[in-house]
Every structure is written in structure tokens, then in C-alpha cells.
């Protein structure tokens, strides 16, 4: 028979979740509003590009990925009222003007000959930055107080990794000459500089600060 009076700890020995997390309720809501804005801009762009790319496999993947990011936007939108933000559109804003400039540059290519640029912007620049910011948030927030956000980010990160892999493979399959390597790299360089100016998808601090503050020497 099981001894029902024998005490057990509330956390099992393998459960190392801890308190507190790095973000309070307000900061979490602000970050999630920025994430939702990014997901919206991304799914809108992917949807718009479908008509402009002649490569059939790319066209169909963009249509599929468009929905993944719309679903992410919806998940973030539903989380905001749980973080005391009832008017979700109030926080659905870009982190800063530099991020707006990044999206304007990323969505600029339209011509049917520019599939490489379209894919590079999303899969070599934006999605890696999203993965970084979401992973930082997922690992830095409390898995006890903010587990609903962690659960959302876990689902989303799974999509992001899968989509990044598919997008990267499409890029590799489209690059056949040295000139195309340069096209891809030049476009990546241009967009990375804009993302650097923005400080990441949630602005400066998107992935935390790894440096140690040192007292100034006299």
C-alpha cells in the first residue's frame, strides 16, 4: 500500500524551475507587443510575395509559412490581455523607427528575378534574429510565473526552426553562381546593418547584454 502521509517536496528533484524571471508583467507585455508586430509584418510580406515568385516550390512554401507567422501573431495577441493589456493594438507597435526601416528594406524586392533577395531577408536575417530574441525571452523569463509565454514561445520556436531550415535550403538550391552568392551576401549585409541599428526585433536588449560592467580606471 502507498503511504499517503509520507511528505514530498512541491518540486520534484529534477524540476529546477526558479523564481523570479528577468521580466515583469509590463515589460513582458511590451516585448510581446513588439513580437506580434514583427509576426504581422512578416506574414503580410510572405503573403504578398507569393504572386511575385515564379519558382513553384518557393511559392507554395511562402504560402505555408505565411500562415505559421499569422498563427504566431494570433498567439501573441491572445496573450496580451492576460498581461493586463486589453487594447492589444496599443502595444502592437515596432520597437523603434530603425526596425520599421528594416522591414521597408526587407519587403522592397518585388521583381520576379529577386527571389534570392526575398528569401535572404526572411531566412538569413529576420528569422535568425527572431529565434535569438525568442530563445532569450524563453530562457530568461520565469517558467513558473510566465509559463503561458514560455509555452507559446516553445510552439513558435519549433515553427521558426523548421521554417528557417526550409528557407535556407531553398536559398542554397537557388544559388548556382558566384554572382548569386554575392547578391545574397550583399543583401544580407545591407539588412544586417539595419537590424543592428534597430538592436534586434524587440530593440536594444533583444537578446540581453552579455558584458560585465567594470569600474572605470583612473
Amino acid at each position, binding site marked *: 500500500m502507498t503511504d499517503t502521509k509520507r511528505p514530498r517536496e512541491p518540486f520534484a528533484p529534477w524540476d529546477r524551475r526558479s523564481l523570479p524571471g528577468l521580466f515583469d508583467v509590463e515589460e513582458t507585455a511590451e516585448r510581446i507587443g513588439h513580437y506580434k508586430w514583427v509576426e504581422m509584418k512578416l506574414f503580410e510580406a510572405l503573403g504578398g510575395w*507569393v504572386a511575385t515568385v515564379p519558382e513553384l516550390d518557393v511559392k507554395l512554401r511562402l504560402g505555408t509559412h*505565411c500562415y505559421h507567422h*499569422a498563427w504566431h501573431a494570433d498567439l501573441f495577441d491572445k496573450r496580451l490581455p492576460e498581461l493586463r493589456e486589453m487594447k492589444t493594438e496599443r502595444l502592437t507597435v515596432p520597437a523603434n523607427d530603425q526596425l520599421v526601416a528594416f522591414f521597408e528594406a526587407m519587403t522592397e524586392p518585388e521583381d*520576379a528575378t529577386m527571389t534570392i533577395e526575398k528569401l535572404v531577408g526572411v531566412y538569413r536575417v529576420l528569422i535568425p534574429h527572431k529565434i535569438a530574441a525568442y530563445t532569450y525571452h524563453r530562457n530568461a523569463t520565469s517558467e513558473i510565473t510566465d509559463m503561458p509565454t514560455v509555452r507559446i514561445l516553445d510552439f513558435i520556436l519549433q515553427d521558426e526552426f523548421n521554417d528557417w531550415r526550409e528557407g535556407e535550403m531553398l536559398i542554397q538550391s537557388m544559388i548556382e553562381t558566384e554572382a548569386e552568392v554575392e547578391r545574397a551576401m550583399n543583401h544580407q549585409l545591407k539588412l544586417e546593418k539595419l537590424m543592428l541599428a534597430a538592436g534586434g526585433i524587440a530593440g536594444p536588449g533583444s537578446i540581453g547584454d552579455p558584458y560585465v560592467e567594470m569600474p572605470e580606471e583612473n
Partner: protein
Amino acid sequence: MRKIFPAEELARDARFIRQTNEQRLSDPRGTRVAGGNASEQLAKLTPGLANGPDRARALMHGIFVGEIQALEGAGRTCWDFEVGEDVPFELKLDMARQCWDEARHCEISVSLADHMGTELGEFAENGLLYEAACNPDPVLRLTGVNRALEGLAIDVFNTMKEFGNLAGDPVLEFCEDWMLADEVTHVKMGSDWLRRLTENDKERLEKALEFQKVVDRLFSFNGFRGEDDDSPIQLTRRFRELAGFSDDEIDEIADMSREARAEAPS
């Protein structure tokens, strides 16, 4: 990237040949596939018809290019309109979901076309579906695409599902049934958004329904789709009801097709 992307610039590889509706209807190769005379062309699509298998192959190719354009149209609705100013956030989520569904339909229909012995590009494409998806008013766009064209897709998929059943082709029947389920969802989206966005705007509602009639009429040529037992494509009452069509609306489409059939050259 521009807002409103013109139909004539839709990006395609070298296998796709675009024809206008006028070119398509006067193309003698189309007549050969459809049958020698008007009565053969307007016979119900069954595997027993002498030209039945070829007509089914042509129709499947038409479904495939239609799905590409439906994907492109839903994608453009995600891009062309601003949340808050033009459309609600939830409408765009529906359109993104439709993008995914249409991408899967492309994968299904191109696989079925191959299964039926058809090469990509064997038949011409016309851009009518996407043209309806270029309407600058999102309510008219959704009504034209989701209620008129996706409504037609319900009829076409149900006919192809029956064709698969009669032909003893379980793969065709299985796949068409899955696509049919998605189409009912898309038509219902159109019906729901039409009701929500025109709740206090009777004039816009009337304009949207008029646009739907224009699109429905374009695809009722010669009574191609109707409720008579021998109509090539069967109007599917039950699924249209599930998708938010009233009895009166279904009667109107049936009457339109009957009139077009009566006017068709014999």
C-alpha cells in the same frame, strides 16, 4: 513591393501558358477535349463519356492553376490592406490560413494531375480568378473570391469526387473530399465577413452581392454549372448551405445557370 499586384504580372515559370477567356473559348484544342458539339460539351462529366477522362484531366489542370491563383489572391489580401484602417486583424488571419490551405490544394491537385497522366502546362491558364482577387474593396474581393469562386470550387470538387467514385479511383475521391471540406470553410469565411463588415452599410452589401453575381455569371458560361441532372458540374446545395448560402441565393445561381444553358448554342 506594391499594393495591388496586376494579374498580367503573376510570376510563372516557362511551362505555364496564359490565355484570355476569349482565346480559351475559341481555341480548337479546347473543343476537342470538351467534346465535338455543344451537347457533348454540356454533358455531365462521367468516366463513361467518350471524352470523360480527357475532360477530367483538363479540369484537374484547371483546378491546379485555380488553386495557385487562389493562393496568390489570399496572399495579396494579407498584404494589400492595413489592419484597423481597411480590415480587422482577424480577417487577415483567415486569409493567411487560406494561404496555407490553398498551398496544400496546389500540392494535392498537381499530384492528382500527375496521377491522372497530365503534365504541368499541358493546358492553358487564364487569370480570371486572380482578377477577381484584385478588387480594391476588401469586402467585394472576399465576396467575389470566397463566395463566388470558392463556391464554384465546392461544386467542382463534389463533381470530381463523384467522378472518382464512379471511375473506381479511391485516391481521387479521397483527395477531393478533403479539399471540399476546406472549400466549405473558405466560403463560410466569405459569408461571415460579408455579414460582419456590411452590418451597418447596406449599400456596400448590395455592391458586394452584385460583384458576386458578375463573377458567378462569368463562370456560368453555357450553363456549365447547374442543378439539372445532366449539368456538367453539379451545383451542390447541401455544402453551400453549410457555407452560409441561403436557399434564395442558391436558387438564384441555379436559375442563372439554367438561363445560360437555355441560351447556349445547340
